[in-house]
């Protein structure tokens, strides 16, 4: 049996496969399909302090191997999450990470303050990068300075580990990752979706009501992988890889690029059992290759090329 556990220092996962925020609801939606305890962890849907309405529909557009979404972070807010959802999540033996959103730096702090008082949350993933939120200048992931500021404040508000989730919609993602590390982020996850659009030619206007949305799915995997490779080569803190992971092979690529764990996103919508299948495929690979500890393969593609 391969030891699939991965140790990020601040958090240990039973295996490197987590469900990504925004594609896994609050986790409970998947109970009819899979045993959530088999997952390394669950990153629940982004939470603002208050409930949030999100964007008008249409919210979805498809492209070959891709999905463009503009949900706009509709969600229940922290109070309802703590009252109705967390008590049920807590009973499930897996690492629950809350994706944290904010309209302002203060709101990030408010959300983490509030949730830090609760049992059953293992850490926060700071969503500084959702491209759907229309507020001039407030996508902190776009500059190293604003990333530094929001991560710094988050760290001072949180008793729990903080993972900063990066946007790929930047000129130099390494620079942003370094700023997050400098500000004290415990880990980094990347990438969020790529800013994209589709046009309905029959109607002669953008398909999404929000005009722009975020592209996810197999279409973005090679670009996400390149970014993970670059960031993992540059930072000292643990990296979690995200972007179009649909198979065990995809997940292994991210691990070899230097990610200590991966998050599976869009695949969950199409195959609710995707995470479980990916864990099995990773296990099968390790057995075939005689790998005793999954941690042994992390970053191996990097060390063999960039030395």
């Amino acid at each position: 049996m391969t030891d699939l556990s991965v140790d990020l220092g601040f958090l240990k996962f039973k295996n490197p496969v987590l469900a990504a925020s925004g594609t896994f609801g609050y986790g409970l939606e998947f109970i009819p399909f899979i045993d959530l305890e088999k997952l390394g962890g669950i990153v629940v849907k982004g939470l603002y302090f208050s409930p949030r309405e999100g964007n008008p529909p249409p919210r979805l557009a498809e492209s070959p191997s891709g999905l463009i979404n503009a949900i706009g972070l509709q969600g229940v807010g922290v109070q309802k999450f703590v009252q109705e959802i967390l008590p049920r999540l807590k009973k499930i033996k897996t690492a629950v990470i809350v994706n944290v959103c904010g309209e302002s730096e203060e709101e990030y702090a408010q959300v983490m303050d509030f949730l830090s008082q609760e049992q059953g949350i293992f850490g926060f993933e700071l969503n500084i990068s959702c491209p759907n939120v229309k507020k001039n200048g407030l996508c902190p992931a776009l500059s190293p300075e604003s990333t530094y500021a929001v991560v710094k404040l988050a760290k001072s508000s949180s008793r729990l580990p903080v993972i900063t989730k990066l946007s790929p919609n930047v000129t130099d993602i390494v620079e942003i990752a370094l700023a997050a590390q400098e500000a004290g982020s415990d880990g980094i996850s990347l990438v969020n979706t790529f800013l994209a659009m589709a046009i309905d030619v029959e109607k002669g206007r953008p398909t999404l009501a929000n005009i722009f949305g975020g592209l996810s799915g197999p279409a973005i995997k090679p670009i996400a992988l390149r970014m993970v490779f670059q960031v993992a080569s540059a930072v000292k803190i643990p990296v979690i890889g995200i972007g179009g992971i649909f198979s065990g092979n995809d997940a292994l690529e991210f691990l070899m690029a230097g990610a200590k764990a991966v998050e599976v996103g869009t695949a969950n919508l199409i195959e609710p059992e995707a995470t479980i299948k990916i864990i099995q495929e990773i296990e099968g690979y390790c057995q075939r290759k005689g790998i005793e500890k999954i941690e042994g393969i992390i970053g191996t593609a990097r060390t063999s090329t960039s030395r």
Partner: protein
Amino acid sequence: MVKDSRALIVRKQTWDNYFLFTIESSEIAQEAQPGQFIMVRVSENYHPLLRRPFSIHSRYKNLLEIFFQVSGLGTALLAKKKQSDRLDILGPLGKGFHLDNNLKDKSSLLVGGGRGIAPLYFLAQELQSLGTKTKILYGGKSLVDLPLREKFENDGLDVAYSTDDGSFGFKGLVSSLFEKELYRFAPASIFACGPEAMMKKIALIVESEKIPAQLSLESQMGCGFGACWGCVKKIKRGNQESWTKICEEGPVFLSGEVVWPEEEK
């Protein structure tokens, strides 16, 4: 709610652009309620990426049926499947029509526009077994858009037809036929599924009549089971209007709950 990746197409019927698949999937068929739907994987690869939602058209023991019209890439791929092919489906999903014993000995009017007829056949079967007097109004653009006519007649269902061009039955929109039949038939309950303009008109008519109508809404869906929040429509409950997941809270809503979008210019 289960996934069946080996659901078997046991029969395929085709009329022009409309298709009726009979699918063997015992667990999903046995659990299914009228108004619920399934999500079907239409492609083995990633184009299109998402599953497609289909109302459950009927259920008989281990079999269920879906009735659909080719309207895009996903349905075009599905239409190419053949008898004895396997389908990968999730279901049954959503909250279906609300049926209770009060419907016994009363009458129900079911209004289907185009492919919106799909869930009403299953509903009619259930209503009849509850002892409800059931009448279906089935409308389409033209006679070719009423492919289930023969099936309904063979079953001895009470059906009135409408076509926009007058090629069969009442000439005009099915919502106009509905307005006429509403006064003649005096139903205790109303169920409808069809294009938004039709549903909106029915909602308007029943509002003044104070007869509740249950409407099955159609929406583009990312997952079908509440995870992505992609399928929302504006629903009013109490005094609160919010973007509500059609897949999880619906697809069936009361006519008074639906907040209709502004007409497209």
